[in-house]
């Protein structure tokens, strides 16, 4: 695969983790996502890029049915995770969101201790049979969030007392605590300073080992650094989707070229 980084080019590409076909999203009259087809790979990072308002967040929210919570929002089409229709009536959206975790632009820890922030999901989903097992899940999740060493001595301190970058990694730890298979991230670094951004980017790269990661980003450089696949959205259309190296070195569509090179298209 044509990753931007020479040593990272080998990713296995069998069945897609997520497959969307003919996806349409309307907010009342506003047709926000227009007939999007896309296959998203497992164990890979997929970046969604495009100008503000093009529908990146909207499409991302389709993948864990977060749009269900918006009254005016209507989603059509077929979206499958592991070949299972996630909009099927049998599917419980709460269970789905445990399987498809989400991290937002602004870190949003609960006003609780660091420990409870991470333990919350496993508790409500009954993932631990006793305290010892819960402790284990909390530690493993904080380690996956690359923040364990920084917080292990103050697990009872409030999550909101951490720095912005630490809060974001805590939110990632919280998202992985329910053993999700897909991680959705909506501009996870845009509220962070460069060092915290770099830490989160490194973390995203590690998460790729275990998850299918989809990240919305405004930073072209970030998309090029962390992703293997890139999707360019424009006015609700998926204009171009391909290997990140191809999108950034030699995009096929002039709209993609204009956007990534910073031209007035």
């Amino acid at each position: 695969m044509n990753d931007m980084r020479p040593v990272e080019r080998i990713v296995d590409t069998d069945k897609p983790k997520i497959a969307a076909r003919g996806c349409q999203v309307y907010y009342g009259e506003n047709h926000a996502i227009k007939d999007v087809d896309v296959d998203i790979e497992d164990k890979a990072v997929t970046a969604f890029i495009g100008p503000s308002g093009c529908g990146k967040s909207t499409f991302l929210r389709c993948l864990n049915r977060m749009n269900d919570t918006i009254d005016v929002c209507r989603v059509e089409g077929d979206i499958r995770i592991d070949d299972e229709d996630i909009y099927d009536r049998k599917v419980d959206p709460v269970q789905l969101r445990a399987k498809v975790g989400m991290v937002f632009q602004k870190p949003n820890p609960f006003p609780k201790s660091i420990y409870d922030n991470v333990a919350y999901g496993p508790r409500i989903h009954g993932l631990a049979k006793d305290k010892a097992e819960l402790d284990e899940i909390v530690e493993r999740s904080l380690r996956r969030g690359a923040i364990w060493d920084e917080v292990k001595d103050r697990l009872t301190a409030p999550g909101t007392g951490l720095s912005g970058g630490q809060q974001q990694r805590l939110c990632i730890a919280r998202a992985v605590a329910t053993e999700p298979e897909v991680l959705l991230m909506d501009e996870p670094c845009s509220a962070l300073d460069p060092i915290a951004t770099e830490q989160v980017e490194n973390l995203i790269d590690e998460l790729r080992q275990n998850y299918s990661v989809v990240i919305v980003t405004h930073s072209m450089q970030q998309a090029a650094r962390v992703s293997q696949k890139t999707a360019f959205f424009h006015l609700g259309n998926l204009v171009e989707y391909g290997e990140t190296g191809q999108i950034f070195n030699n995009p096929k569509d002039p709209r993609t070229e204009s956007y990534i090179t910073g031209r007035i298209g």
Partner: protein
Amino acid sequence: MQDPHISAAFDRDLEAIQAMIMKMGGMVEAAIVEAADSLERRDMEMAGRVRLNDKAIDELEEQVNEEVARLLALRSPVASDLRTVLSVMKISGNLERVGDYAKNIAKRTAVLIDLPQVDGATSAIRRMARAVEAMLKDALDAYIQRDADLAEDVRNRDVEVDQMYNALFREFLTHMMEDPRNITSCMHLHFIAKNIERMGDHVTSVSEQVIYLVTGEAPDDERPKGDSTAYEKLEIQ
């Protein structure tokens, strides 16, 4: 033409480095012609000028490299912008090498002036130099016009230069066998011919950069090659 960038300064910088390439290209074209002319006319003054001008070409290359580094750091260009910046860097390197060969020819001219003439050699060398200069002119035109077809045409013309070199190589061998007093001149003339043949290779590389710039892909390796002197044997009766 592409749409302008949101940052007008980026457009200006990209234009500026390409203008530097064109300036360098003009100087190198002149160097090729003057190096060959000064040899044929035994014009020491012109040969001296070629050597002097090479310093200016080298300085221009340094400037291009600095500008390229600055642009990469400030703008992190991608896609066609990245290809433009990379092609500028490579082309300036090729042009600088061609300039060096011209200077080398001018140095040998200073030696050859005091040696016996070899019939027809300098006019044949001048024809070869003209062919390379015409290739360079077309390669630079192809660059400015983003004309991959013209660049491909230039690429295919390198074989003619190779053939001219082959012919000269054999001629010099014959002269040296006929009369050992020709050896010093012919050795110098042979290096000059070889220098021009190498110039052709660098011009070919410039045209390959144009193809990469326009299409996003390096051209395939299937290009006619005409230099067979590596397999040439000296037959002594």
